[in-house]
């Protein structure tokens, strides 16, 4: 067992075209089989941080390291790849769900080769696991938002990488789908996956995340155990309004803003 799956070491990043944020000296250690939430306001740079973790954006300073291989840079083949689900995706609407899921096998399939039986079997297996197997022969454009989200998760599973990055996986879903997506993320963890997701809702972080990274209003970054980081003080610094954390009987945490 390795200590960490992914580390950010003194990472800094700033947009060259004068976007209004930059990070400095970000240190993050992601342990295997944990759930980490990245919390911040809209436009705070959550997605940028996630893309740096993916390796898609190069940090202007510091290093991003992947373990156990300790590779720094482009992860291309097989299990070394990092699965990534952007917030919204230009999924071609008229292709079938099964063909879309097969695309997740790309790291294992050489350029001039077609997916084979083994790839189909894996798609079938994971589709059953996340209960989208009844959708396999529908067109992507014909399924609901919640279903699409499950299908995309399924694509990440089909990719069979240990690390899964999710950009705002829960934000735009209705309550019902929201709940099942949180269950899904816990389920991914039980399968041995390591998950990092972004959100602007502290409840999601408190409910399911082991670790949290919170970006304050002035680009200060706090990383640690969720209960140490998602505090009233940090939340207030993040959202720039007074925030209280309370718990109801069923144990769910909820956040109430104090009306002055």
């Amino acid at each position, binding site marked *: 067992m390795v200590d960490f799956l992914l580390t950010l070491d003194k990472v800094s990043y700033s947009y060259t075209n004068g976007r209004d944020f930059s990070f400095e000296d970000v240190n993050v250690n992601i342990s295997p089989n944990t759930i980490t939430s990245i919390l911040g306001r809209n436009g705070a740079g959550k997605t940028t941080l996630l893309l740096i973790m993916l390796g898609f954006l190069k940090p202007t300073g510091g290093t991003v390291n992947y373990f156990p291989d300790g590779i720094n840079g482009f992860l291309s083949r097989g299990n070394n790849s990092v699965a990534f689900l952007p917030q919204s995706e230009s999924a071609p609407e008229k*292709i079938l769900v099964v*063909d879309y899921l097969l695309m997740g096998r*790309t790291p294992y399939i050489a350029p001039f*080769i077609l997916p084979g039986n083994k790839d189909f079997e894996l798609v079938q297996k994971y589709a059953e696991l996340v209960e989208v197997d009844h959708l396999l022969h529908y067109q992507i454009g014909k399924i609901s938002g919640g279903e699409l989200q499950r299908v995309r998760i399924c694509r990440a599973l089909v990719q069979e990488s240990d690390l899964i990055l999710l950009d705002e996986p829960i934000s735009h879903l209705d309550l019902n789908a929201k709940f099942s997506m949180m269950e899904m993320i816990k389920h991914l963890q039980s399968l041995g996956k390591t998950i990092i997701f972004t959100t602007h809702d502290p409840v999601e972080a408190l409910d399911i995340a082991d670790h949290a990274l919170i970006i304050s209003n002035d680009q200060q970054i706090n990383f640690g155990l969720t209960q140490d980081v998602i505090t009233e003080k940090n939340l207030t610094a993040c959202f720039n309004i007074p925030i209280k954390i309370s718990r109801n009987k069923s144990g769910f945490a909820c956040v109430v803003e104090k009306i002055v």
Partner: protein
Amino acid sequence: MKSEKKYLIILILLIILVLFAAITGRYQGIGSYVELSENQLLQRLIIQVRIPRIMMSIIVGAGLAISGLVMQTVFQNSLAEPGVLGISQAAGFGAALGFLLFPWTRIPIQFLSFASGILALLLVLKISEKIKGADRVSLIFAGIAVSALFSAGLGIIKYVADPLDQLPSIVFWLLGGLSTSSWSSVLQITPIAVVSIIVLYLLRWRINVYALNDSVLYSLGIRRKVEVYLILGFAVLLTTSIISFSGLVGWIGLIIPNITRIIFGYDLRSSLPGSILIGAIFVLVSDTLSRILIAGEIPLGIITAFLGAMFFIFLIIGKGSPLSKNG
């Protein structure tokens, strides 16, 4: 119906059409098998004239259909194809420049046509990137502009060309046609076309994947820019090598992929082979019509434009139109 069954039906249709095209033409007199085996002029006509022309039709149809399909998939835009993006016009310009400068040989024509096709592609990509608030229409606007640029260039070439000798041959060639097909033209065009078709055919599954977001492709281990440029390069090579011989035979790259997707679905594993067959049939039918309809010969480009425009109208007013939002 399964894809295999559809291929079989369409393949049988293609074979029947090939046989029909081989025995049909202005030269009358195929009444019987006996005549075919005794009339040596007819045999020579079929072997030396009609068969190479049929082969050219198949290559032109298959090649233009595939490059249209590949571009539409890569750009996620069912209107993107060499004609709309200005690549065909550029190929025409390059080839006409070749006619003008090196009238005695064909090799510079193919090369210049490829070079200006690539130039047009790069221009379209750059311009559409720069359009503010870019969406799927911006590619089409960029294509219109680039197309107009090369049309203007073509106009200049026509203007300076020798009106007695060069101009008529340029104009006739631009109208598009296969009437000059011979075994030597088949030999000239086949190697490039077949190699490009095989490369794109083998990559048919992977080309599907390029439709995903750049960041997702990165996570799947694909460097999008490198691979996409390479594939578009092959599509341009295929288009321009065909156009430098056949002239501007339009509408195939636009219409055939849209028809093919209706029949074979959106995955290139089945729609790319399908577009080979349907493209071949479309051009073979058009070319056969072009030589049997009237005593002379109607340029092929006119027939494909007519049929293509008819199909296009049905397509855009129909269900699942490529102009509708989820096209």
